């Protein structure tokens, strides 16, 4: 029984150790080669596997500007459309509605059919649309022409909040787990709407840009087309689509003509993916405004279309407010076509099979990579406006070689002190603790690599410290065993009791910290999340190495000497 137990434990420990070691020193994403396991090979892969922070290695330096004028333009256009619809709902006739966004002024202009209805239209519009004085739009009318102008104070606040929102979204997009250690700062004067991003490790700014992606607006839209089962109505050219609208070459305010980019087959390679301009194959007419927009999404996940398939689709669920809207619409429009519009391009079209309330699927023959990127942007929310890059550089480490050296040296010395003390104070059992400690370090680094964590100098000191604290479990166990020995127990039963008693304590301390880390993770952002991730990782690793491995070594020791054991080096 004991023997089998020991064998089983040894196998588990062996596998975990080997996997951990491979993650740390083995190459990722390709088959290992014999050369990878020579000294220089390991050194090279290590450098690739472990991401060093801005302070140790430097990275990319990007300044980007949030195109707030695009945001305001979209806002004004949406308001113009909404205003026209609001008037129509009250059976007030509006000849024409448009948005004027030239020269830094943002105006919604409505032409009433009847000048005497101006006040009625104004009331109807301001009740439904955010165009009142209190929302920062000043109203003026001359004859049948009604004009809402965005006041400059509100323009400033809106631009500011758009930049702020972009800032947060960029942060959550590049630092989902909080372990990437970027620095993100507002840049330039207040009205420049610039954001400075430094991304550690990545020496190629283009890569950061790809990581950020740039989709700004997501909408689910109604595609104007005969209902299913007839195929969706598409047009070969934009002109053809406009002609089909039968409105004399103009696009009415409640329609948009947008390109429909059929997702290329899943054979699309990453290289093709990166090319920004793929020619739209077709055009479609969609209703404006859309059914719901990206802000209503609660979650999105990429799932394979078929089990084991290469094609992916995106399952999403909606917030309650969006779910009501979407449910009403889908209920009333069964068999109609719905499109997913990303940046004024329809990416996929599907017909409504049945009423969808709070969840749905975007089918679009996505590749794994494109689905993941889309999911990320959907989850973190779409950027309120596009961004343009105004500065790109790569920068070296922010710490001098001296500081790095002394920091690393101090960390290693700290670790050495712990090791020496354990060996001196606990003799044989100290070796046990040191083995657990080294394994702890390997597994911890492996975990950080899996999470794609970035190591900074304080991070390294933190890891050393976590490991120092991890000895606590061993100290607890050993002290307990000593106590049991003092109270006159036999060696096997003292070990048994020591582990048993200390285990309760260890579980209590670990679970308490894990519980509090969960709070940090769920409610925190950025570095706070990162802290929680690393802490939980350290604790789980510690449970394995300090309790499981340590115990196994004791079982082995006791088993080897059998019942005649008379002394225990502890």
């Amino acid at each position, binding site marked *: 029984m004991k023997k089998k137990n020991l064998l089983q434990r040894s196998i588990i420990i062996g596998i975990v150790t080997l996997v951990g070691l491979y993650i740390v020193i083995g190459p990722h994403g390709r088959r290992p080669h014999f050369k990878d396991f020579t000294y220089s090979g390991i050194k090279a892969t290590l450098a690739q596997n472990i991401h060093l922070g801005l*302070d140790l290695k*430097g990275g990319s*330096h990007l300044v980007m500007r949030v195109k707030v004028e695009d945001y305001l333009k979209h806002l004004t256009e949406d308001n113009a459309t909404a205003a026209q619809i609001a008037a129509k709902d009250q059976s007030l006739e509006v000849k024409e509605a448009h948005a004027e966004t030239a020269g830094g002024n943002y105006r919604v202009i409505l032409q009433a059919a009847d000048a005497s209805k101006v006040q009625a239209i104004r009331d109807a519009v301001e009740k439904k649309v955010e165009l009142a004085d209190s929302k920062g739009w000043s109203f003026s009318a001359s004859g049948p022409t009604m004009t809402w102008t965005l006041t400059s104070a509100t323009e400033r606040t809106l631009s500011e909040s758009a930049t702020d929102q972009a800032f947060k979204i960029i942060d959550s997009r590049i630092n989902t787990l909080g372990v990437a250690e970027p*620095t*993100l*700062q*507002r*840049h*330039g*004067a207040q009205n420049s709407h610039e954001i400075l991003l430094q991304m550690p490790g990545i020496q190629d700014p283009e890569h950061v840009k790809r990581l950020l992606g740039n989709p700004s607006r997501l909408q689910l839209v109604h595609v104007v087309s005969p209902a299913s089962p007839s195929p969706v109505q598409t047009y070969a050219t934009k002109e053809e689509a406009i002609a089909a609208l039968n409105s004399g070459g103009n696009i009415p305010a409640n329609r948009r003509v947008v390109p429909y980019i059929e997702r290329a087959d899943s054979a699309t390679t990453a290289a093709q993916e990166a090319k920004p301009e793929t020619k739209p194959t077709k055009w479609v007419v969609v209703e404006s405004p859309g059914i719901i927009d990206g802000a209503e999404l609660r979650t999105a996940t990429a799932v394979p279309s078929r089990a084991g398939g290469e094609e992916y689709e995106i399952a999403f669920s909606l917030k309650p407010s969006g779910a009501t809207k979407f449910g009403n619409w889908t209920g009333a429009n069964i068999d109609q076509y719905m499109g997913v519009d990303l940046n004024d391009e329809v990416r996929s079209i599907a017909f409504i099979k049945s009423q969808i309330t709070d969840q749905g699927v975007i089918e679009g023959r996505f590749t794994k990579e494109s689905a993941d990127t889309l999911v990320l942007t959907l989850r973190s929310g779409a950027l309120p406006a596009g961004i343009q890059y105004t500065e790109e*550089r*790569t*920068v*070296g*480490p*922010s*710490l*001098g070689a*001296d*500081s790095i050296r*002394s920091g690393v*040296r*101090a*960390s290693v*010395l*700290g670790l050495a*002190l*712990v090791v020496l*003390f354990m060996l001196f*104070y606990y003799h044989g059992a100290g070796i046990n603790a040191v083995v657990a400690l080294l394994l702890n370090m390997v597994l911890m680094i492996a975990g950080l690599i899996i999470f794609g964590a970035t190591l900074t100098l*304080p991070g390294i*000191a*933190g890891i050393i*410290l976590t490991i*120092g*604290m991890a*000895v*606590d479990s061993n*100290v*607890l166990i050993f*002290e307990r065993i*000593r106590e049991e020995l003092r109270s006159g127990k036999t060696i096997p039963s003292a070990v048994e009791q020591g582990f048993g*008693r200390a285990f*309760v*304590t260890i579980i*209590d*301390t670990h*679970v*308490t*910290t894990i*519980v*509090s880390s*969960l*709070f*940090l993770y769920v*409610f*925190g*952002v950025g570095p*706070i999340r990162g*802290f929680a991730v690393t802490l939980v990782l350290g604790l789980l690793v510690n449970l394995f190495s300090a309790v499981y491995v340590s115990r196994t070594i004791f079982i082995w020791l006791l088993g080897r000497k059998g019942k005649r054991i008379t002394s225990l080096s502890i």
Partner: protein
Amino acid sequence: MAQLFKDVRIDWLGKRRFFIGLSIMLLLAGMGTAIYRHRFHPNGTEAFNLGVDFKGGTVVTARFKQPPTVEALRAAIDKAGIHDAVIQQVTSVPGEFLIRVAEQIPDSAPGANQTGVDPARAKVKQALNTFGPEAEPTKTLAEDPKAAYKIEGTDAVGQIASKQLRNQAIAVTIAALIGMLLFIAFRFEWTYGAAAVIAVFHTVLVTLGLFSIFQIEINLTVIAALLTLVGFDVNDSIVIFDRIRENRKLYRRMSLYEVTNLSINQTLSRTVITSGLVFLSVVALVTLGGETLRPFALALLMGIVFGTYDTIAIAGPIMVWWEKKLAAANKVPAASARESGIQTKGGGDGARGKVGKPSRAAQA
């Protein structure tokens, strides 16, 4: 077998008045300093010496003909009176450096009508002039034969740790403490949870107080250190609580006061070894880790010291006092007498004697 403590019989709870008095004094000193600095700004100090992470600042982009080393640049800027500059060499443009400095107070020199980024530019320029003159404003670096460098740009930057992040860190930590409180309450008692959380608060506040008194720079890593302390401190409290729980079952006749003392003494070796080891590694960081790690290491150092201290000096007494209150409120007099060790102020020899040799009586 080398043994640190054998059969210790210290009456920790008997010294509670001294401990709690000491803690209150430390808390008051820290709070007093912070409030005083916040109101009156002696020597231009604030309640806390917030580092460049928490302040907006300026990024100066400078290009050199003969690029100096980052160390030489840092030394020059340090000499000019800017101590927490972040200097990065631009690897994509040879000879170019980005120098991030915190907001600078304009020199009161005559004719200084500087605002915003200008004071920072002026100070950095002053520092860079030690490498040679700057190129004329109208000329590029290559065109001016006498110039050693040119400032290519100065831009304001916001803080890395926004106020929002700071507030969130505080809110989230409190949420995490509530989580701990709930879990400890579930595993032990409410009073244990409350005592542990109060002890943690105490450590964090005392550490922050010392940071205010000595004006040690607070940066993002210090926040991480404080979060680490929270975990370490609770860890310590739970180890002792766990022992108390176990001992209460073993020695049913002993008062909570005695059991607590016994448990603290039984776990003393572990407490001293673990804290001592962490303390050793932190001392290595403080003394040899260099400027960059110092604030982080100092926060940890203080936290380890007070975290260990408060488990014994704060968490224990609060728990015993509270349990006793509850027992007095709930139980019939006969039962409460058993719990009332603290009131008889056993402090003296009576209690100590019992702590030492409880086992026979209790096991019987």
